[in-house]
Structures are given as structure tokens and as C-alpha cells.
């Protein structure tokens, strides 16, 4: 019950209010003035919104590929019982314990074109800035997804591998025929978290690029921040926020449905 209250007060109530604000014009002073669908019309017709949406999709896809491949391999590797793996896994986990802001500031300093370790115009070029954001996000969150895959891989019954070994399956065959299929639900879990996380990715963009160069890394959460706390157009910012809530919820539902996660079929049929 406290959990429900907490969720209602800190998630549902603000969401409902943001939805209400999206039908008003409000600059933070005085009372919000109802403007009907103006903000939503602007949302549909805004060129920056189109670019922003595309960048968000691109960032989500790139982050998924980057993080999933590395986290999956690392997680399966870390699932082994060897002592050195336990020690190394603990070290790999450190980035996830740092705050996003600290990480972003750290990389901002490292990428400085005159005094950093890579003295190139990375954050000032469109592709460089985008890749930097994908990389820094990955650096931070791969440890978390590694942990999920490690847990998932440890759940796979040893007998499957033993049987496969008897049948003459090598290491790669075992990975593709046993480990990967068995981790199907783990991939879904990790993917949903990753996608929703990418959709609300914000601090790193703010600190590394401020949406730039130009508007080339202004993903949706940044566009929302800019509308709200730079232009003080809280009505429009709330429309973007509401859109994000709908998009994130919709996407995770679709993912769960597509992957069959919802029907809870056992991955260990016949065991």
C-alpha cells in the first residue's frame, strides 16, 4: 500500500498534471491559460520534433546494439564460476555506481579538443557528438545489463551443456543453440529497460553537447527541457512529456507482446 501511494503521488499525479498542462499555455508565472489543442498541433507540425524523434530512435537503436552485444557476451563470460571472473566483474560494475552527471562531466573533460586525451573536434561534429553520447551511455549502463545477463546465464541448467557436449557440440554451437535461446526472456527484460532508458536519456546530452552542434543531438527529453526550462513554454514541454510517456509505454508493451514475454511460456520445455 505505501508503494501504491508513493507511485500515485510521485508518478501518476505529476503525469496527469503534465497532461493537463499540455492543453494550456503557461510560462511559469500566473495561471495556466487553456489553449485547447494548440500545443499538440505544434507538436505534429514542428520540424525540430521530427528531427528529435528520428534522433531518439537512432540513439535507442545504436545504444541497443552497442550495449546488448557487449553486455550479453560479458554477462555470459562472467557467469562462469572462476575466481578471476568474479573479481573482474566487480571492477566492470564500477561505472554503474557513479552518477550520470559525474560520468558526463568526466567524459566532457576527456573529450576537450585542446586539453583532453583525444584532441579532435568530437563533440563539435554531428556524428562525433552522437557517437560520444552512445558511447558514454554504454560505458555507464553496460555493467547493469551485464549483471542481468550474468544472472540469466547462471539460470541455464548445466545438464543442457553436458548433453550438448556428448552430442559433440563445440563452444560456439553451445552458445548459439543453448545460451542464446535460453536467454530469450533476459534479452527482453534488458531490451525493455534499455529502450525506456534511452527514451528518457537526458543528463549526458545536456552536459556533453547541449543538444548541439546545432540541433543534431537534441533528442526528445532534451527538446522537452529546452521548451520548459529555456523557453519557459511549459505547455509545449508538457505536450512533449506526455508524448514521451505514451511512446515509452507503448513501445514496452509492443516489445513484450512481440517477444512472447507476456504469455510466459517456459524456455525449458521438456525439462
Amino acid at each position, binding site marked *: 500500500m505505501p508503494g501504491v501511494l508513493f507511485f500515485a503521488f510521485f508518478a501518476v499525479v505529476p503525469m496527469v498534471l503534465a497532461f493537463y498542462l499540455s492543453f494550456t499555455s503557461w510560462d511559469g508565472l500566473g495561471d495556466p491559460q487553456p489553449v485547447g489543442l494548440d500545443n499538440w498541433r505544434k507538436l505534429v507540425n514542428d520540424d525540430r520534433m521530427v528531427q528529435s524523434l528520428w534522433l531518439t530512435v537512432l540513439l535507442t537503436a545504436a545504444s541497443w546494439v552497442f550495449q546488448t552485444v557487449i553486455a550479453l557476451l560479458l554477462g555470459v563470460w562472467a557467469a562462469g564460476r572462476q575466481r578471476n571472473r568474479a573479481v573482474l566483474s566487480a571492477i566492470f560494475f564500477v561505472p554503474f555506481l557513479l552518477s550520470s552527471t559525474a560520468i558526463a562531466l568526466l567524459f566532457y573533460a576527456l573529450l576537450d579538443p585542446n586539453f583532453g586525451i583525444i584532441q579532435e573536434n568530437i563533440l563539435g*561534429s554531428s556524428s562525433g557528438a552522437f557517437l560520444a553520447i552512445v558511447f558514454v551511455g554504454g560505458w555507464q549502463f553496460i555493467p547493469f545489463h551485464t549483471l542481468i545477463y550474468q544472472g540469466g546465464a547462471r539460470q541455464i541448467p548445466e545438464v543442457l551443456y553436458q548433453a550438448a557436449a556428448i552430442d559433440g557440440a563445440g563452444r560456439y554451437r553451445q552458445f548459439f543453440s543453448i545460451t542464446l535461446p535460453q536467454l530469450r526472456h533476459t534479452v527482453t527484460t534488458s531490451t525493455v529497460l534499455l529502450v525506456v532508458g534511452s527514451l528518457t536519456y537526458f543528463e549526458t546530452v545536456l552536459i556533453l553537447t547541449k543538444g548541439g552542434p546545432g540541433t543534431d543531438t537534441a533528442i526528445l527529453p532534451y527538446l522537452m527541457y529546452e521548451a520548459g526550462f529555456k523557453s519557459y513554454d511549459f505547455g509545449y514541454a508538457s505536450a512533449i512529456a506526455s508524448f514521451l510517456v505514451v511512446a515509452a509505454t507503448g513501445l514496452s508493451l509492443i516489445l513484450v507482446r512481440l517477444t512472447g514475454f507476456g504469455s510466459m511460456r517456459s524456455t525449458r520445455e521438456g525439462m
Partner: protein
Amino acid sequence: MESISGRSNGGRPTGGQPTGESPGSLGSRTFDSRTFSRRWVLGAGATTLLTTGLTACGSGDGSGGGSSTITAMVYGDDAVKVQTAAVDRFNKSAASKSAKGKVKLEKVPGSDYSAKLRTAMGSPSAPDVFFNWGGGSIKAYQEANQLIDLTDTIADDPVLKSGFLPSVLAAGGLGGRNYGIPMRGMQPVILFYNKSVFAEHKLQPPTTWAELQDINAKLKAARITPFALGGADTWTELMWLEYLVDRIGGPEVFAKIQGGDASAWGDPAVLKAAETVKELIDDGAFGSKFSSVSYVNGGAPAVFAKGKAAMHLMGSWEYSTQLGKFPSFAKNNLGWCAFPTVEGGTGDIRNVVGNPTNYWSVNARTQNKDAAIAFLKDCASETYAKALVANGDIPTTANAAKLLEASPNPEFATFQYEMVEKAPAFTLSWDQALGADIATPMLTEINKLFVGKSSPSQFVSALKELK
């Protein structure tokens, strides 16, 4: 970093970080149902916008009884020590006793200032007196009837009326009415140059665009970047357009835009200025990496001080920034001059752009207007001006000229004071002159021009759309 970002921001809030801190306690004023609901909308809406949340802040405790405490919200950089001293002095003064009020200073870290002020002003615990940049920065508050009109107060008070440079006092108002009292140093934008680089290559500071291009060619031949530019902070790029538009088309061009005429962006001077910027960029005048160099983290000042770049167009705070980071460079090799004229242009070389100064404005909902006004009067005092001078700032008070000898660098102080005093026109920084709703997309378009994402003509047509 704090000192640099504080000085450098002087006047321009750059990307604010949405930290969720809420300084001070909630006010003890009673909530009536209306303010309560607004507070809800504010707090809750903001929480959704930023997962970190942003609490309505402030600490206006309007306690009853004999005397009350009013709060003054101020931009919390290095220079805030002048205001801290002024508050201490005021709270012990006879003026404070007769107005039955004391002042409590609330310092807000630089980059968060504007957003925090906006949320505080929309809440029941708004500050009574607050720091601002005049012009467009207070427009929304004026339109929401949240400011006290100080025009008559100033006219009736000899100290305030004759205490400040008239042009500076006027820039703190809107539509001919006064809403602000100058409270910090002047911040004109100046073309700084590295004296040792200039001496080594036998160069003189440019007074015309042709001379500037000649200097650029010589510097590039010597593999030195002509201009340092912290392009990761868009307001540094804005300074170039401000001066170019002034020199090409005169101060009237932006004055029209500031007056609300978006079609004035279509003036040929704006296009010419944008084309000139593009020529400079294509010519390598800012080097190849300027778009990822930042001013705020000390990148551009370091490039300049180390002689990798020969010149730097920057606000007058560049001097104290360099004094903090590279003291020997600031004392021995930092040179300064006016922005050159452009051939065929109508702008006077004496015209200045930048921030005249910062201002205190008074919240219309203050419970002790007398105390607030009494506190503002202290800014016109000689003690206050002396404190500014000691901090390296140039006061905008009428008596400033005779105090400048006490400045850490009298030569630079005098140059700056005369520059502003003799300027036929002082154009307020565009981002402060226009409201945030226009300034924000304008800065985005400027950045797009500088990084080559839009052409000069695309730039102009995008600006004409800003309303």
C-alpha cells in the same frame, strides 16, 4: 571551474543543469486554495518534466510583528561578495530600522539562476528583490504584473535619480518605465588580443575590417589561429553577430527587432553579418575545433592565453577570468581594443554591445516595499561602488570615474568606463534583450550557422519566423 563559470556567465545563463536541490525552507505564508493548486501544478508538472524534479524554492518568511525580513535572490558567482557585504551593512543601518525590515540574501549557483528564479516567482515563496539583466529578462514578470514600477521612486529620489549613468539606468527598464536599479559592474564586449603574439608578428590592433583580414592572413601563415572562440557555448558566437550587425547596419537594426518587429531580421545587415561570419569560419579564423571548445570550462581563455589564438572577442569579465587562471598573461600581455568598423557599414566604432550591468528588481508581492527600496538605494552609495571597484568591476554609478584609480588595473578600468560612457549606442546582448521564448530558438539558429548546419540565407529566414 566555479569562478570561471561564474564570471563568464556574468549576464548570460548558459545551459542550466537541472539539479533538484531546493535551497531554503518553504515559506511560512499561508496557502490559500488558489496558490496551493498552482503550487501543485508547478511542483508536480516540473517533476514530470525532469525526473530529478524541481521544487518551488525560496524562503520568504513574512513573519508579523515589528519588523520583517525580505529575501533578495542573486546570481551566486564570485562577485556576490559585494552584495553580501551590502546586505550586512544594510541590516545594521538606520535605513533598515526605519523601514522595519532586514534583507536575507539567497545565492543561486550561476547556471541554474534563470530557471530557478522563474519557478520561484511562480510560487507563493517568491523573493522580494531579485537580480536580473533588465530588458527581455524581466519582460515576462512585467507582463504578469509581478514587478514594482520604480519610475516615480527614482524620479522623486535625488540619490537614485542622479546616482547612475542614465543610459544604464534606462536599460534596466521596459517601454520607458524603470524596473531595475543597477547593482553590478558594466560588461561591454571587447576585442582582446595577445600582446606578445602581436609584437612577435609586428601587428597592430585592427580598426577596420580590411586590417582585420590582413592580420588573419599573417597569423594563419604563422600557424596561429586568429580568434579563440568557445563555440560550445552559443552566446560566445552571438557576440560576433551583435557587433557585425551593429557595424554594418548600425544599432537601429537590432533596436527594431527588440521592439518586436520580427521582419527586421530581414534587414540586409543581418544577412551581410551572417555571410561575414561564414567567410570567417571558411577562412579558418576560428580554427577547426571551435565548435567543441567551451568558454565556461576555461578552454577558450586557455587557448588565448597560451598564444594558440591571437584574439578573443569577449565580455569585459575576460580580464578577471584571465587574472584568475593566467595572472601573468592578464597583467603583462592582455591587450584590448574596440571592435573594428566594416567598410561600407554605418555603425560607429564607438558603439558597444554587451550587458550594461545587472539590476535589482522588486517583486510586486513584497510585504515590505519600504525596506526593499531602502536596500536598493545602497547601490548608489560610494561605499557600494568602491566595493565593486575593489572586485575589479566598473560601477555604473555617476561617481565611478574618480574611483577607478583604486581598481586592480586602472588602465583597463578607465578604458572600459570611457568606452561605455562615450558610446553613442549600447546594444543590450540580444539574448537578454529578447524574451526567453525568442532568445532560445535564436541561439539555436546562431549555433546552426556557426557549425555550418544552415546557410546565411537559411539563417535569416529562420530568424524571421521567430515570434
